[in-house]
């Protein structure tokens, strides 16, 4: 791609555009086959709920999930035709495309023919780690972008040791925190590895100085977040105390995740398990480590690439955060891309070895992905293979959402456990949602003064967390004085005020 990019730039861009088209095609295929990411739906629902409110406020977004992916979705809210919830998938593709363009730019340094670089690009893109992140509509595509920048900054610290690389590392961590809750674990995992990245002289003279330079912005980001929680929610710890918080990961629902059931609360066992996962899904990392053993600078970078995600997985699991190792393991694809920008494949033999290891990584990655898939990942694989991943007619959230769309009326509902409902409705106009003053005021009343109430079945996972159910525990089963049942289907009931 070097020749492609550096000669005219056109062919390289065309090739990357083709790859992005491929990703778009795959996403359309997935959606057409009924795949729907919970994460994407939840984020989109948050955005439309926040922007559809009477008064658009920052606090409408809640402080229970990182905000940057939400802000990036805001412009899509105003684009006609995206009400159906396609925006998060589009954002994932854009983020992945941006990453590919960035990578192509950085690959200018690598002296490889365009054919070889194209082969590398294809092998990177078809790895399930990358493909899952790029097409599942989750925030992992943005995380991958952040991880790529982190890794490039680390490489720059090793090779150049200039102030820009330290600033890049520190500032990328800030963005990472506002993209993904796992950034905390990725940051903590890098702390011991900084001694491998930074020049020995700096570490010997002032380790504290080094850690302050890299860590202060991240600490500021966390402190800022806590402060915003205090300002708007009354508690600095709101974002790690609230049961719906994404910052808690799988902590409160350990039993739903096999990974946490096996390894939650432990460090070394998940570390070993993650090492096994890495050896299967990314053996190319080990190859790069061995290949660079005679090059101090590159070896340090490869060593960090190998170890960093493993430590992050172990720490995140020890804190019951990580629900599946692929949430962090997928980021290795981005690290690998960054590593390849430094690779000097001078002989045909070296290149052939690299390609072989990348092919093995792709094969191993797919095997591992399918074998260890959680329900969402399984749904994705199903859809990818052309099977229908879900049946919309049997989806209670979807059905009630569509019903509410047909019956637009001010409705009280707890959106945090019903994001799919909001997404299916397509807007939040007229809804009385949990962040609004009206919701709080209505909930204080014995008989809520609202025209319509939607509640999920109280024994369902979302029903148990639903504030309306908690406040009116008999509503679902017995209704409420002054309200009549107007909808009852697939675990959702809607009561309407008699006078309405």
């Amino acid at each position, binding site marked *: 791609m070097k020749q492609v990019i550096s000669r005219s730039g056109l062919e390289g861009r065309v090739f990357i555009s083709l790859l992005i088209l491929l990703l778009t095609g795959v996403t359309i295929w997935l959606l057409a086959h009924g795949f729907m990411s919970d994460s994407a739906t939840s984020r989109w629902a948050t955005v439309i709920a926040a922007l559809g409110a009477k008064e658009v406020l920052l606090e409408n977004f809640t402080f229970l999930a990182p905000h940057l992916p939400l802000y990036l979705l805001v412009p899509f809210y105003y684009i006609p035709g995206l009400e159906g919830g396609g925006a998060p998938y589009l954002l994932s593709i854009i983020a992945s495309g941006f990453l590919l363009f960035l990578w192509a730019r950085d690959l200018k340094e690598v002296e490889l023919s365009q054919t070889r670089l194209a082969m590398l690009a294809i092998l990177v893109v078809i790895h399930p780690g990358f493909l899952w992140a790029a097409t599942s509509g989750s925030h992992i595509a943005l995380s991958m972008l952040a991880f790529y920048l982190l890794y490039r900054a680390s490489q720059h610290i090793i090779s150049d040791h200039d102030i820009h690389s330290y*600033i890049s590392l520190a500032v990328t961590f800030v963005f990472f925190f506002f993209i993904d809750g796992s950034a905390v674990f990725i940051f903590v995992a890098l702390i011991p590895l900084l001694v491998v990245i930074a020049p020995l002289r700096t570490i010997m003279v002032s380790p504290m100085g080094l850690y302050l330079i890299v860590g202060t*912005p991240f600490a500021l980001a966390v402190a800022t977040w806590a402060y915003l929680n205090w300002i708007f929610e009354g508690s600095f710890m709101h974002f790690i105390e609230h049961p719906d918080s994404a910052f808690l990961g799988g902590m409160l629902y350990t039993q739903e995740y096999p990974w946490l059931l096996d390894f939650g609360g432990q460090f070394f066992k998940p570390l070993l398990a993650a090492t096994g996962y890495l050896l299967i899904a990314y053996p190319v990392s080990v190859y790069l480590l061995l290949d660079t053993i005679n090059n101090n600078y590159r070896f340090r970078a490869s060593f960090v690439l190998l170890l960093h995600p493993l430590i992050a997985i172990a720490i995140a699991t020890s804190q019951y955060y990580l629900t599946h190792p692929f949430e962090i393991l997928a980021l290795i694809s981005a690290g690998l891309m960054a590593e390849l920008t430094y690779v000097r494949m001078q002989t045909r033999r070296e290149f052939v070895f690299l390609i072989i290891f990348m092919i093995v990584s792709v094969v191993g990655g797919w095997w591992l992905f399918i074998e260890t898939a959680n329900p969402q990942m399984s749904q994705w694989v199903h859809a990818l293979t052309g099977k229908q991943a879900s049946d919309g007619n049997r989806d209670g959230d979807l059905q009630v959402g569509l019903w509410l769309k047909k019956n637009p009326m001010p409705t009280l509902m707890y959106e945090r456990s019903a994001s799919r409902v909001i997404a299916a409705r397509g807007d939040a106009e007229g809804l009385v949602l949990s962040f609004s003053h009206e919701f709080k005021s209505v909930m204080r009343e014995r008989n809520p003064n609202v025209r319509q109430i939607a509640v999920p079945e109280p024994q369902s996972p979302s029903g148990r967390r639903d504030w309306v159910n908690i406040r009116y525990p008999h509503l679902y089963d017995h209704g409420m004085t002054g309200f009549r049942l107007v909808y009852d289907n697939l675990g959702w009931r809607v009561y309407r005020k008699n006078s309405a």
Partner: protein
Amino acid sequence: MSQSSGGVTKPRIGELLVGRGLISNDQLEQALLLQKTEGGRLGDIILAHHWVRTVDFYDALTDHFRKGRIGDLLLERGMITEKQLDEAIETQKHWGTRIGDIIQARGWVKPYLLGQVLAEHFEKPNVDLLKNRLDESLLDRESLSTYSENLFVPWRREGGLLKVAVVDVNPKLLEMVDELVGEPFDIIITSKFDIIWMLQEIGNQFYTEKAVHELANSKPQFSASEVFTARQLIFLFVLMSVSVIALTFWPVNSLILFNVMLSLFLLLNFGLRIVLTWVGGDKHFDNLVTDEEVLAVDERTLPVYSILLPMYHEAATLPNIAQALRSIDYPLSKLDIKLILEHDDDETIDKAKELGLEGIFEIIRVPDSLPKTKPKACNYALHFCRGELATIYDGEDAPEPDQLKKAVIAFKKAPENTAVIQARLNYFNVAENWLTRMFTMEYSLWFDFYLPALDALRIPIPLGGTSNHFKMDVLREMEGWDPYNVTEDCDLGVRLTQAGYRVGVLNSTTFEEANNSIPNWIRQRSRWLKGYMQSYLVHMRSPIKLYRTLGFVGFWGFQFFIGGTIVSALLTPVMFLMYILWLATSTTAFDPYFPPVVLYLTLFNLLIANGFLIYLFMLSGFKRRYFSLIPWALTVPLYWLLQSWAGYKGFWQLIHNPFYWEKTHHGLTTFKVTHDIGAGKTPARTAASSAGSKS
């Protein structure tokens, strides 16, 4: 007129001149006749009749007059040793200057003694101007600057021939004298100090007038002598009236609007600083001039460099700076160092005399006049400078030894329109106390990040107080510094940019003494902020014109970099106070004035912007490898409060005493003055604190 020296018969003067075709045989005969009848020297007679120009006369006869070689003459008279002569000859090969200059620069022979030998060498009279005063009627008052810059002065008229006192004899100088006096003349030899002292005594009023009023007379639009112009006062009046009316009729909306504007300003101000830090952090700026380039310099090609040392009650620091300049890596004989001392500063003048400084140091006594400011003193001294390039150092400075060479190289590499190159400033007493730590981080941020970025983005650079290296002709063209501006350096940087010149930066550091006392720091900082206000007011007299000359980036860069510094200093305590009040009382009184968007902007400024501004301080310590300073950056909000205090003091003075130069005491540090500050090195404390001084 037979001449013989050492047994070698020289050709006669008349024959030489006829032989060169400079005079005719008839003229020679007439001259010889006059010599016979009236007496006198043949050469004087020929010159007096203007049959030949003095320049051509000496061009033809230089060798004729020369008696021996200067070095040999000095050796013969026991003024120097053979070893010194050998060393001087060897040095001459590298420096490419005259033996006499080298000997004088080394301090082996006093200038007046050298003058005597020089006179003997050229077979010309040596005159002590203090004992044999010149005829003042011969002076052209408008040419006083030319006299002092080139070290010659019309002395007397003898035998109808004008005698001009010179320090050196060279064709260029004689050409200049010839052009200026416009009549036949001959030369006498004197010492440069005689000329300087004499001209100062005679031309005090002229030089002072020029130093104080030149800018105000020739470019009044750039002079801070008028603090507020009438138009600015009208604008202020209208603005205040509109504000009062708005506050009366629409109090909430007006305050919301004010909050929006303020928040946006602070946000953009923060944004600019982030951009500057990123751009200025580029490695390229640390290698603008490399060590290899310095090593490769041919010293013979280096220009004469004037160094201005304005001092006031700084006797204690004088030995340090003198030593620092002696150790500078530049041909000493090409240094033209001016100790600029106030007339009433006997203490420093006596110290300078007591130190018996080499001939390259010249004392310029600035007469008492108002405003009593550093720029005025420098303007005064500018009339005596002979360098092609010039720089300023303070008494407590310790420049890196290769700074002047780096500046010369930087000028060669820079675009032709580069008028000044600013070196980096930093401190040698970094770890003395909390204040010096803060000050060091601030300076590191300013000079290591901001200024290189301003240069790269073509935003006017507010020059630092010292270590700015000027092209002398441009500096004179700009009429020097504004004596009424108490941050004349900042003002000059903006003026130069407006005049189409470029202000560059240099990767060489001058280490100074950081203020280690809060009252002293407040004095200094209040002057700086007052000066910034003066500069802002001066350059914003015609905002549209300023925009046209600086362009979009330059104009807004000026608004946020200079204006932003002032506004931040003045607003910080107000914002802090409101925040603390809100925090402590949970009052809802402010709520109407902070609707959601304004609240988010304010929160961003409070949390992210302030957080990152603290981080920038950390980065400055990190880049300078002052690792121990990094944790101290967390206390920088206290430093901002001090800055605000100084800001309000400066603002008060701007109204009540705009030209008052707040004196900063120097020499208070207990640390040793040194330029050798590196990672892991802790600058040493001296045994005892030296006496303080002011500047």
